[in-house]
């Protein structure tokens, strides 16, 4: 295994903490961040974030002292709170990796009513808005300071 890859235990903890951040929802018809496709996206695109994510998972493992998934829910929540409070930039990076992969998943974007495409080349239409709102500013006038 390369130093750039997560260990099996780290991957398990990543999956568990991802589900704690964003669980699946029947109400919104979306997967959790522990969904296999989203996890595969995370692992496949870690890139420059790998070192900090591994550091965050090491910190998480020290706090939990056992696989996160095996902790009882109350204890797991306490570990998560402690992790977020003490994890520093590494924890911030791990959470960001989870969020950026989750919020580009097709199922999630569809649930949010967003189109499954890059902004370019189609772009978006922006309504002109009510320019009469500027009339009071024009009426009030004013003068900038002149030396």
């Amino acid at each position: 295994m390369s130093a750039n890859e997560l260990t099996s235990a780290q991957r398990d903890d990543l999956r568990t903490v991802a589900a704690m951040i964003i669980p699946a929802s029947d109400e919104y018809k979306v997967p959790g961040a522990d969904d296999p496709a989203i996890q595969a996206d995370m692992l496949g695109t870690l890139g420059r974030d790998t070192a900090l994510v591994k550091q965050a998972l090491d910190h998480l493992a020290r706090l939990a002292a056992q696989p996160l998934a095996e902790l009882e829910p109350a204890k797991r929540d306490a570990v998560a709170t402690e992790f977020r409070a003490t994890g520093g930039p590494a924890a911030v990076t791990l959470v960001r990796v989870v969020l950026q992969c989750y919020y580009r998943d097709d199922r999630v974007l569809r649930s949010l009513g967003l189109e499954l495409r890059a902004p370019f080349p189609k772009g978006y239409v922006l309504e002109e808005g009510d320019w009469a709102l500027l009339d009071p500013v024009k009426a009030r006038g004013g003068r900038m300071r002149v030396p």
Partner: protein
Amino acid sequence: MNDPVDVLIIGAGASGAAVAWSLADTKMHILCLDQGGWMKPSEYPSAGRDWEAKIYGDWSTSPNVRGRPEDYPVNDDNSPIKVVNFNGVGGSTVMYTAHWPRLHPSDFKVKTLDGVADDWPIDYDALTPFFEENDRMMGVSGLSGDPLSPLTHPPMPPQPLGLSGPLIGKAMNKLGWHWWPSDTTVATMDYEGRARCINLGHCTPACAQGAKASTDITYWPHAIRAGVELKTHCRVREILTNEHGMASGVVYYDKDGVEQFQPAEVVIIACNGVGTPRLLLNSVSGRFPNGLANSSGLVGKNLMFHPYAQIYGFVKEPTDSNRAPPTCLWSKEFYDTDLSRGFVRGYGIQFVRGAGPVFEAVASEQKGILPWGADHHRVFRRLHGHRLGVSAICEDLPEEHNRVTLDPVLKDSHGIPAPKIDYTISENSRKMMDHGLARGREILEVAGATDICMNNPIPWGGWHLLGTARMGTDPARSVVNEWGRSHDVKNLFIVDGSVFVTSGGVNPTSTIQAIALYVADQMKQRLANLFD
């Protein structure tokens, strides 16, 4: 050795492009060296599905995060505001918001008006024709007639108000405060070969449509057609001088990493307020032991950033999210000095329309308003697409202890010492930022926003790099004279934001380019006795 050139320009960004284009009509042999390369719009973030994630990596505004070979590292550990920039043809105009205010006439006379800092050796009127010329070249959209801003004549109409603009306008009208559609370099119609804006939303990390003006697509095609030569991936290490104390050329590393000497009759530096002092301080010789053009000791000192105080909240109505250029409106309500506010000088306000889903999730989780767990989905749907932002861009006054020096350890990929930043936010700026946050809160509350959050300052907000080689008439108190020529080295010119005496309270790129065009014009008028 390379053949000598008449004019060598270092840096192909905002000011380097403008000065190159202006000087091209002299028919002199002009060469520009840039450490980066030409941009490929097909690779810009908004051309891909992972457009948002890229701002945390390859398209971060921070050179330290991007870490491309074209970037140089910056030690900004001792600064609450981190340096952001871009290196390549177009420079930081490739990665800016395209917000396009000008400094006000009063900004050039702060000593006279308010008894602080120094007056500039030039005034607004001297720059007026160059502001106008620059607006045509960059292609500006906006609405003429703002009563609280300098008169402009944008060649294109303003951006649409969209969904967010009316919410801001109504709130400002209730408060009786000034607001106006921003001048921006976003093309709102087809202009000079650029396609109009189609609202990709992700303006800052480059515009795949080419609607946002960056100098690689505005000035450079014209300059090259006029005969200017541009060499990319050439990083200048130092400027050499001859026995007469004149600049003789530069040492640079070419695209293959081979050290080269390029002789030149005139050297123009256009490397921004961090890169320029870095280069001067790295250009040490027996005659110039403290760095080139530094007899005043002011090279690198008086660094000004514009501390940004940002506040944002979430309204019930939908906002534009990522489906519009992020900036569209400004306010000058608090721009001019009012000592009853507890500080001198003032700030401009820049309104922000919204954010995409990834940015919203990351930012809101970090602020603690987007929870982990089952409630995450409900809260996210309340936040996403409902953000309104207000940023106070505060005038930073010059202080010599705010400075750029050379880091004793950190080096770039060619082994050239990197810049080190020492910077603190002044008491005056702190009061200004607090005032801006309080007014921003009022605006957001009138707009009906909740979950209000702030960044004070925006930590990765060092976009505006100013003041580190200031202009003036006194060689003991300035680095260049009133037309950009070094007091110490008569064939060395500086045209970037380094020459700013004070910072104003607005984005500076329009003024930086107007100054570059003004310096070029001064040079052309004095060609017969340029070195006298």
